[in-house]
């Protein structure tokens, strides 16, 4: 754990030191080449704007209007159908929010943790879920947007299957480890 934290802390400085140094030793004109590469930064950032705006607007309207709460309410009976423990239904809003919005999901997770306590079953489950998957919609919009891809093919399906697997695995492992 501490070793990993240290690696994370040193990774970027090491990268910043080693790459230019090795490049210099291999006779690359370091500054000139760096600047040529850096030129691409501006356009890449600008290109993702329409995709981000489109995705963020739809997501924020969905969340702020309360439609997300209604969806969470509609999903509840499914949990009963599978005979899962009742308090699990409290985690539904987080499960829906997680792939949509990073800041939104963090807000919901923080709320669950403060309401039920960080060391409760729900608190630990929310923590595990928050750390175990990414904001699939946001990432797809940004990454595909940067290269002008409009047809995602099966990418969204694939991302959501991974998210659902992460969710089920979270419930399983937290029940198993912490009971």
């Amino acid at each position: 754990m501490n070793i990993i934290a240290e690696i994370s802390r040193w990774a970027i400085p090491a990268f910043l030191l080693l790459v230019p140094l090795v490049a210099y030793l291999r006779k690359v004109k370091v500054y000139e080449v760096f600047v040529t590469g850096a030129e691409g930064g501006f356009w890449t950032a600008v290109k993702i704007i329409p995709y981000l705006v489109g995705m963020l607007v739809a997501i924020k309207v969905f969340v702020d209007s309360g439609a997300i709460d209604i969806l969470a309410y509609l999903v509840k009976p499914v949990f009963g159908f599978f005979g899962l423990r009742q308090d699990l239904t409290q985690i539904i809003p987080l499960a829906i929010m997680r792939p949509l919005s990073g800041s939104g999901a963090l807000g919901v997770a923080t709320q669950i943790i403060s309401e039920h306590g960080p060391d409760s079953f729900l608190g630990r489950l929310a923590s595990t879920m928050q750390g175990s998957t990414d904001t699939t919609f946001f990432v797809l919009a940004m990454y595909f947007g940067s290269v002008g891809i409009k047809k995602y093919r099966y990418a969204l399906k694939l991302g959501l299957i991974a998210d659902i697997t992460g969710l089920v695995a979270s419930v399983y492992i937290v029940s198993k480890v912490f009971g």
Partner: protein
Amino acid sequence: MVNAVWLFLLVSGIIVAALTGRIDVVTNSAMAAAKLGVEVAISLIGIMSLWLGLMRLAEEAGLVRALARALEPLTRLLFPSIPRDHPALGAMILNISANILGLGNAATPFGLKAMDELQKLNQGKDEASEAMCTFLALNTSAITLIPATIIAVRLKAGSANPTEIIGTTIFATGCAMAAAIFVDYLFRRRKGGRS
């Protein structure tokens, strides 16, 4: 599928707002989100430039190729459509590594660079390639060894052991990643699966 989901989010949001008599929410949220989209993109410019500059250096020094070669057995399996030694491989490896270490600031520029390289290989131009789908599946499910943000939240909420969820998180994210790799393999075998 993305068209249907996008429309669903927007339409259901507006209907719910209208039925609950809070239609103003739609206007305010839409405007705020549009502004946020630009802010996120603009705030990326500096970091993007820094990492793209370094990436170019690493490429010219032959480091990206060396990295791709070192992990070739793995990348052969996941990305059979990408020629060996292609710069896309190095950029994808750097992106996943940065994700694993929780270095979000570095991960995004590497990832966008990888997409740029993948797009050069992509014939269809406005349609995702198989390699892109595989890469994004890995990216969005990638293991984070230390979920730093949530640990901070737990600490603040007075947890007796804020880091006790690291193990469960790694397990869950590992399952997600395994599922992503496996299902992606199925999709690729089915060739041309549309949605």
